[in-house]
């Protein structure tokens, strides 16, 4: 099993997420995360999907997705030539005596404190998923009250754009 990141431009229409997630469910593709967001073109949304699987599943997933009329462009992000980022919001138990330790960790990880109350604080941190994993591991002993991760989003380095690719439905 390996992790792959797939990025796709899809129609910004209702039902598209259902089409994509329905496809994953019926073909048994297991995903770690799915992140949908707006793009520079209001007609398109961008999906970043992290797949946990093998090469066969990766090929089937991208090809089956590419066939969907609403999936316009799709590619597998190149691990070495892409930027991967994820945002984490985490609420930690932070009584006054523990606060300074947490603030030290915050500095090491370049996180930000975005909310502070007498017994807790909320931090925000952005980075590659493994950086976030590391951060979570370090702060875990202090008591995680709750956390929210956005799932990874990715862009290729350089001037190559997803939009420059050819859609399967234009190739047949």
């Amino acid at each position, binding site marked *: 099993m390996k992790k792959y990141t797939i990025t796709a431009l899809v129609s910004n229409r209702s*039902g598209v997420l*259902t*089409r994509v997630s*329905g*496809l994953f469910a*019926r073909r048994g593709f297991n995903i770690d995360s799915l992140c949908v967001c707006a793009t520079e073109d209001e007609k398109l949304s961008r999906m970043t999907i992290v797949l946990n699987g093998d090469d*066969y599943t990766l*090929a*089937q997933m991208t*090809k*089956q997705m*590419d*066939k*969907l*009329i*609403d999936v316009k462009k799709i590619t597998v992000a190149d691990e070495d030539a892409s930027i991967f980022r994820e945002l984490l919001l985490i609420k930690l138990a932070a009584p006054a005596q523990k606060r300074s330790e947490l603030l030290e960790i915050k500095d090491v990880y370049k996180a930000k404190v975005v909310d502070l109350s007498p017994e807790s604080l909320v931090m925000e941190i952005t980075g590659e998923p493994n950086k976030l994993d590391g951060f979570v591991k370090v702060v875990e002993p202090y008591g995680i009250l709750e956390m929210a991760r956005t799932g990874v989003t990715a862009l290729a380095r350089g001037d190559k754009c997803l939009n420059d690719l050819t859609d*399967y*439905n234009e*190739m*047949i």
Partner: protein
Amino acid sequence: MKLSGAEILIRCLKEQGIDTVFGYPGGCVLDIYDAIYRDGTLRHILTAHEQGAAHAADGYARATGRTGVVIATSGPGATNLVTGIATAYMDSVPLVAITGNVTVSNLGRDSFQEVDIAGITMPVTKHNYIVKDIKNLAATIREAFYIAGAGRKGPVLIDIPKNIQTETCEFEGADPAPYSPRPVAAEALAAAAEAIRKAKRPVILAGGGCIGSEAAQNLFAFAKKIQAPVCSTLMGLGAYPASDGQFLGMIGMHGSDAAAKTFRRADAVIACGMRFSDRVAGDRVKFHEGKTILQFDIDAAEIDKNVPADLSVMADVNEILKTLLPLLEQADRKEWLKEAAAYKEYEEANTDKSLPAYRILTALHKYVDADTRVATDVGQHQMWAAQYCKFEKPRTFISSGGLGTMGFGMGAAIGACVGSKKRTVLVTGDGSFHMDLNELCTAVSQKLPLVILLMDNNTLGMVRQWQTLFYGKRYSQTTLDRKTDYVKLAEAFGAKGLVIAKEADIAPALREAFACDGPVLVDCKIGIDDKVLPMIPPGKSFDSIITKI
């Protein structure tokens, strides 16, 4: 010009060259039916049930190559289409299904006869739509037809809420967007040509894609040029003329012994428009052992899906064969063809010709021509039809392959008959026929020259065959203790009923059946333990073939 949504629909159907639609009216398509009535030029075939209409539109499309159209109302009307849509999806049949729905303001409120048919059909359509703004209606219908007929064909559903049918908007006519497959770059085929040249014992597997892409002519030229035997999948029957010496019949679970033997000896497999379904490949791993697999298919996702290909070309099969032909020299594989022909001769000499289904289906040849459409339901009779009827031309064998839909036959035969405008044959079984006999009334109303050969063995024969072979003869729920009198049943519907009870009845019954103007039901009494052979047990390889029990 301002038109209502219902009128726009009719205009758009005509733009696409549609002159025949199948359907069933209801509350949420009243406006569409009113527009059909006022227009007066569309032929509408009213069926007994929406499922029959969906299968009829499918059968029409398979028989003609044109996109079939089916109309149904919201709620149960729409859900009744689902089996028909799924059947068309599995066999890549171009179909546009139009459903009505409650008004947009009532959507999502569990209104009377409201159902999320777009949600329900998402996994079994190429694409589907809910039209919520009349301004998008015409463009949506045009796009739906394009998608249904482009690339790997398939069904598309358009859900049109009632208010969209009655609202008006400006309408401008447009010619249908033509689909022509992309040309294949010759360089891409050079490697395939080289692999074919190198092969000592190549075999061609022709699938439904050869029919969908109208590749029959180029497939024939290809087989002759490379001198390779040709096997067909169930869906490919008719793509290659059965009477040709290089044709070995069907391959797979109930494929011919000659195909299995030839396949085992082959060193290269050229798969044309087929997807290595489990019914063809059996043991997926053993299937490609010791063979070079070349796969030609328009659907990228089919390449390497079931069986890994050593070499593949993703494009329209007809385009591939057309481009490949000039790259190849006339081959000489006489010895290999002779070997395959010997397997075929051996099988021919060793086939049990006493089986009533064999007697009846081979006798059929005298009454049909190469253009006669033969539709089937699903079960033993379907496999016998695939084995014993000789299909010479594409679009003459109309059968539910992928989904294996019992209850497909009557609707499909009606559609095929309407589309081909010729006498059509339906081969069915007593199990399947009880699922779709309601459509006999449609065949009668439409005065269709339909000959129905019902293989009557009082059992669900194919399931029984599996119970015999793999379930210790425990015939759970397969013996049909029914007292249906098929002659009376046919007469009650206004059709003719005949019986074949013994060998001597075959000729006179067929003669009489094929002389009728309207539908005829022939009750063919066959044995409860008649088997479909050869058989390769599910998931097994070609050397596990059973030819005698």
